[in-house]
């Protein structure tokens, strides 16, 4: 059951109404049952994995077996997500050395959201071991924390100190939360169904056969992918946050106008914030953070970025993507220190363009199925500069451009503090109604979210 499926909205409304009608002590049970039903809708077999992860983290935190929880959680990830990657890489290595290799490739299904719920529950165990939070003694409540349906498939990765008290309270949503929830869901659907999914066909065609595409087409496809992945993931996060608000739950914001970033470090403060902060708190700081010698600090930075790449997928392209970000992040800090924004708007605009160019190039490795294909695309962009094609139809291309302009127009207005306080109700209501009209007119049916595969 995807967020863009109309059945999801029937499910959400039914759950929200039942939640509002039930006495407080049963609300958590309702959300827990709904979350397992939601997760089982992807594949019921994975609910056992979810349950296992829940029990591992709950009891390991209770008995302070942090190392065991980390080992078992990472083992779970290693088996389901990374086994074939390492297995195939070793096979290639052995074959290149003309040595026998006997472990076959296994067809392992990747459970939806495994990286998200594993990290979220692991964060809880580490927080308990550090004494940052009290252990949760209520198993159903902890199970809800791990499985809460708006965030289970693709985050945002929540923190126990933020979420567990909210689940304990199980309060009804405020009027403001309902209002914000509706707005977030509408905006999320626009980002996903009107921007991300419309761009997909142009991108898929160009990336599938770069040899037949001009450099211009590939460049446009790469820029479209930068926009697609943002709209896809930010759209998902907004629908997740909006859905949670109908149950009085506030999830953390995952994006803060990432393409308005003026440097790579700035980009990482704005992109997938819940994951970045997870790596900072549970990996970078324990490694010593920046309070170590320069060589160790460089090592810490690179480790975080490489693992961040690997977290996204079991492929060398993701690791290289992480490495590009790691290197440019280091270069920026070494050359310019922590200084980010300039007082000059033109300088900031130029920085913004340069940052986008780096991020865009890195996304080519992220999107391409193989390292070779990514290099082929970049080479063609540079060596075969030709006019971009419009794809299937000129009108589709034009509508895609309009959708992108609406996305960044709204983002730009919000970025420049055209916030609720300054936006009259009439304008906001009309704006959201018009966005809903654009969804009705321009939405294309989608089958997945990019980040569900992670």
């Amino acid at each position, binding site marked *: 059951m995807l967020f863009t499926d*109309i059945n999801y909205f029937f499910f959400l409304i039914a759950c929200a109404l039942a939640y509002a009608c039930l006495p407080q002590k049963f609300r958590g049970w309702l959300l827990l049952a709904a979350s397992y039903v939601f997760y089982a809708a992807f594949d019921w077999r994975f609910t056992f994995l979810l349950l296992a992860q829940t029990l591992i983290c709950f009891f390991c935190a209770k008995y302070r077996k942090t190392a065991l929880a980390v080992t078992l959680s990472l083992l779970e990830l290693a088996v389901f997500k990374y086994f074939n990657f390492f297995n195939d890489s070793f096979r290639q290595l052995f074959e290149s050395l003309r040595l026998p290799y006997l472990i076959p490739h296994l067809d392992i299904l990747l459970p939806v959201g495994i990286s998200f719920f594993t990290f979220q529950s692991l964060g809880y165990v580490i927080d308990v071991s550090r004494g940052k939070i009290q252990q949760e003694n209520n198993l159903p409540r902890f199970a809800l924390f791990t499985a809460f349906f708006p965030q289970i498939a693709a985050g945002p990765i929540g923190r126990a100190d933020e979420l567990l008290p909210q689940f304990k309270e199980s309060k*009804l949503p*405020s*009027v*403001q939360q*309902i*209002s914000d929830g*509706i707005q977030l869901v509408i905006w999320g659907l626009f980002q996903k169904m009107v921007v991300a999914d419309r761009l997909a066909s142009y991108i898929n065609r160009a990336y599938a056969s770069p040899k037949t595409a001009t450099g211009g087409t590939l460049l446009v496809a790469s820029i479209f992918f930068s926009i697609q992945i943002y709209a896809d993931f930010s759209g998902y996060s907004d629908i997740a946050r909006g859905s949670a608000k109908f149950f009085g739950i506030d999830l953390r914001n995952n994006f803060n106008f990432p393409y308005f970033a003026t440097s790579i470090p700035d980009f990482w403060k704005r992109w997938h914030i819940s994951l970045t902060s997870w790596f900072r708190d549970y990996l970078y700081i324990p490694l010593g953070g920046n309070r170590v010698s320069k060589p160790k600090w460089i090592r810490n930075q690179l480790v975080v970025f490489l693992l961040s790449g690997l977290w996204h997928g079991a492929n060398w392209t993701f690791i290289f993507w992480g490495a590009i970000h790691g290197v440019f992040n280091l270069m920026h800090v070494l050359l310019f220190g922590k200084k980010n924004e300039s007082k000059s708007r033109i300088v900031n605009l130029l920085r913004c363009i340069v940052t986008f160019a780096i991020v865009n190039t890195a996304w080519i490795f992220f999107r391409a199925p193989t390292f070779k294909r990514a290099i082929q695309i970049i080479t063609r962009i540079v060596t075969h500069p030709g006019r971009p094609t419009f794809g299937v*139809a*000129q*009108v*589709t291309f034009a*509508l895609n451009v309009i959708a992108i302009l609406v996305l960044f127009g709204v983002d730009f207005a919000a970025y420049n503090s055209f916030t609720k306080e300054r936006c009259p*109700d009439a304008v906001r*209501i*009309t704006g*959201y*109604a*018009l966005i*809903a*009209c654009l969804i*009705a*007119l321009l*939405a294309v049916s989608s089958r997945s979210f990019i980040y569900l595969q992670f």
Partner: protein
Amino acid sequence: MSSTPKTSLIKKCLAGLLVFAIVNILCLKLFNHGLKQYYCLWPADILVIGHSMSEMAIDRDLLEELSGHSVAKYCMNGTSIPDRLVMIRHYIESTGHKPKAILYDIGPRSFSGGLAVNSHALFYPFINESPTVAKYVRDSASFKEYWLKNLIPLSRYDDSRIGAVIRGYRHDWKNRSVKQLNIELFKRQLAKGSFWKVQLNPGTQAVFEETLEFLEKEDIRLFLVHLPNVDLLNNAEPEKSAAALNYIKDAISRHPNVTFIDANSAFESRYELFIDPLHLNPKGQLEVTKYLGGKIILPQQP
């Protein structure tokens, strides 16, 4: 929740729904007007019915000039023979007028599958305008889809239809394609067997015969036009193609109101007129329309 903010939220939601409904209704009116212009849903002597082949092969303005009769061109990408019967009935219901003649493209592949499987979606914009279309959509679409299209008018449009609306307002029926047939690529596709195959589907044949009977009963003259395909495609399955053409000729022999026009033989080897093995480019459109203009002769009104 105190009652005041709750009431305020309900009012805001209702206001949003009202704006949404008003914009939907206004846009539907605006879009449907443009779409009717593009599909020429107005009274005309000659009605051109077909899919993308007719859309790209027949120049409405030129045909009007050459034939001396008003021409309406109602062609949609991916419409099969059952869709076209719906289109004819929709045209008559929508305009309240029976054309004197219908130009209908036909060929060996007209009875095959391979066109859009969900072609009922092409009729969504007219869901409330014609009983025939309403029934067709209700029978073909899923329950969820049908009600969604009914409740949210803007969801009835897709990119192709939005493009048609724009062209309708611009009165632009010309073939604007800039592509050119890549014959070497097509030869490779033929060698791999990757081309649209000839099949005689009994269900489609039955609807074709129903169409012939309907037009005879309504006293509408029918010009069945075999539009050009590239000869390599025509010769890919010679026996099946001959069988399909024989079936067509046999079926129409029972109907005195039908004339068969072979526009294929004269152009099938002129690759410079095609964008792909099935569709003509603007130059091809011009030549084929000129050819048809000389063949379509209607009896003069007394």
